[in-house]
């Protein structure tokens, strides 16, 4: 076992201590573990299955059924493009294309430098601000291709500034 895997196991165990060994706790456990680790690695799922006394495949089936859970590590910044009805009709799919084009990744993927991950969300309920992109858990309204460039530029500037300060 690598050091990283052992670390995952440790952290999962710490979270499991707060829960009862009840199947009904599976989804809340997964949510907590993902909240801590950012995704659900294999070791964490195995640990959870053992804790609840259920086959590992049952954990895997729940993880892959729900849209919320992810199997690969997230980027530093998360981009969620809302594709609710209002957002779609106001060009959410065009915005998604713009993100894909700029980040050079498809939805569900993370950039190789692990800076950004991109995915869609069914609807965040801010339909009046359509098209919406949720950037680092903050819904931003009226995100059109030019605003995509603007958001990315602000991240770049922030990073450069931090780089300068740390020098």
């Amino acid at each position: 076992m690598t050091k990283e895997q052992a670390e995952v196991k440790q952290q999962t165990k710490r979270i499991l201590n707060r829960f009862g060994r009840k199947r009904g706790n599976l989804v809340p456990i997964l949510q907590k573990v993902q909240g801590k680790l950012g995704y659900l690695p294999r070791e964490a799922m195995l640990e959870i299955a053992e804790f609840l006394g259920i086959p590992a495949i049952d954990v895997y089936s729940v993880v892959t059924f729900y849209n919320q859970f992810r199997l690969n590590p997230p980027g530093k910044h998360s981009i969620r493009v809302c594709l609710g009805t209002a957002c779609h009709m106001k060009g959410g799919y065009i915005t998604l294309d713009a993100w894909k084009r700029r980040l050079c990744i498809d939805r569900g993927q993370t950039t190789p430098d692990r800076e950004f991950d991109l995915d869609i969300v069914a609807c965040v309920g801010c339909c009046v601000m359509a098209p919406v992109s949720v950037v680092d858990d903050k819904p931003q309204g009226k995100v059109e291709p030019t605003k995509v460039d603007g958001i990315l530029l602000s991240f770049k500037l922030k990073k450069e500034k931090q780089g300068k300060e740390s020098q």
Partner: protein
Amino acid sequence: MKTTGLQSVVSTFREIKSRAESQWQELCNSGKPVVMVGAATCGRAAGALGVIRAIKDEVKKHKLDCPVVEVGCMGHCYAEPIVIISKPGYPPICYGHVNKVIAERLIREFILGDDPCLEFVLGALEANELVPSLSDFPRARFEKKIILKNCGHIDPEQIEHYLANGGYTALVKALQMPPEVIINEVGRSGLRGRGGAGFPTGQKWEICRNAPGRPKYVICNGDEGDPGAFMDRAILESDPHSVIEGMIIAGYAIGARYGYIYVRAEYPLAVHRVRIALRQARKLNLLGKNILGSDFSFDIRLFQGSGAFVCGEETALIASLEGEPGIPHHRPPYPATDGLYGKPTLINNVKTLAYIRHIIDNGAEWFASTGTEESKGTAVFALAGKIVNTGLVEVPMGTTLRQVIFDVGSGMQNGKRFKAVQIGGPSGGCLPESALDLPIDFDSLTDAGAMMGSGGMIVLDEDDCMVEIARYFLEFTQRESCGQCTFCRLGTKQMLEVLDEITKGQGRIEDIDMLSRLAEDIKAGSLCGLGKTAPNPVLSTLRHFRDEYEAHIKEGRCPALMCRDLIAYYIIPEKCERSCDACVGSCTTEAISANKKRIKVIDQEKCVKCGTCLSACPPQYNAVVRLSPPSEVPASK
């Protein structure tokens, strides 16, 4: 319940309530100005948090004694961020489209000075001589607020605000009534489930009360998965206690001990506020063991859904609460007799539960006096799309679609022509102009090929392609199908492929008949509501907008100029201004360049059809146009 116990309930509650009232009075009537900022998700997306920070900084800078309160959503989402200022000597005034600069000005000039900055006013909250009030708006004639009444006027994170505005009195009243009487009252009110199906609520409660088996559960279904619907989110974020109170009363009526509030994880703010509300209610013993000293105990847990549309279906929701994948099972047995862990379980929608306190407080007759013969009370809609006043509305059942869209919603944006209204999300349908005079109730919309669903209403104009919207919904249901029933799993995929081809101009005329045949089969061969209603968007657009399907197939043309494979962007040389470079700078793929005469030309190979140049071109030139089919673009010289 024993009389002595009841007396203590009443006296305990009186104490709690009077404490809350004095707190509320101190906020509202202490001679201090009060600033309220709408900080539900919609407000935050528009920048409410920045506004709050600016206001607080300004208040601190001038050392003002002025409380700043975060409230929920008033429903005027088009004007977010919204700020309400109550200053002694003035009516409470509501300001719209407030940004940091305006916020600072309001503090400086209105609170510090005495200028109410009339240029930013949306309306006053009560009638007065100085500014027009919100109730003078034309929409006020059609609106009747019952469950949205508190939204945007109280701090959802303060139980005292809710208590001071009539909160939890219905619970105390209910605890003094025999459970059968409560169920009878709910039944007589004519309340029908607001999740979409419209099952009589009283009847559901009665079945659940009479079902054998213990413990019983109450579940609040807040898994608002319909894209384009946000009523439940707004209520949970703006007035969570009204839902909790409804749940406690339901628990008492059916004899339950535990309840769950099931909220989508995509609504983090709603989750946060419900959690706070539960904690506060427990602290005042309005929730938990021996509520207010009575012998009734009831507790509620919060459960976060993890993003599966099908979990809005009650049996799937129960499966996910049990830690299984959310796959629906056959009904009957219904959850009312055989639900969570096989026990009788009452599942009601957020809005249904929010009505309960009003029915208990004001009586069944009062509730039944609003609405139509078969659908009582009010309907809450989330208005979105190409409409001027987007936001939340609550109107009596029986109001026509035309009144909601053109009177309450103030009609279409940018003077465009109305084309259709999409109601009921992926289960509903698109209704054309000819259906606008239909009264809104559970039955008439179903007859017209749509359904009330949970209440999302997306207004579409002439720029929206009806084939594309049908394709969009099918893509959604296809992705969200749990995969259990063959017809739903494979049938929706087939339909989606056909629609994909049509929107790319590769459809065949026989496809239209095949779509309707497939649609009928999917409806017949699916177990749950997702599959049974998935073809509705296709069927309703085929019924009302068949000509658009035919234009795509026969002419390779998209009449609404939306389907990207069937359009091209083109700059009209005669209109293009030599000295202007707006489109060149805006283009995200560097597809636009100027020719020798400094006329801009689009390289069709590079163009990704994002439409940025169209919005960038200054209105005085209006040189960028969309053409369909793409062969309309003249060959470049």
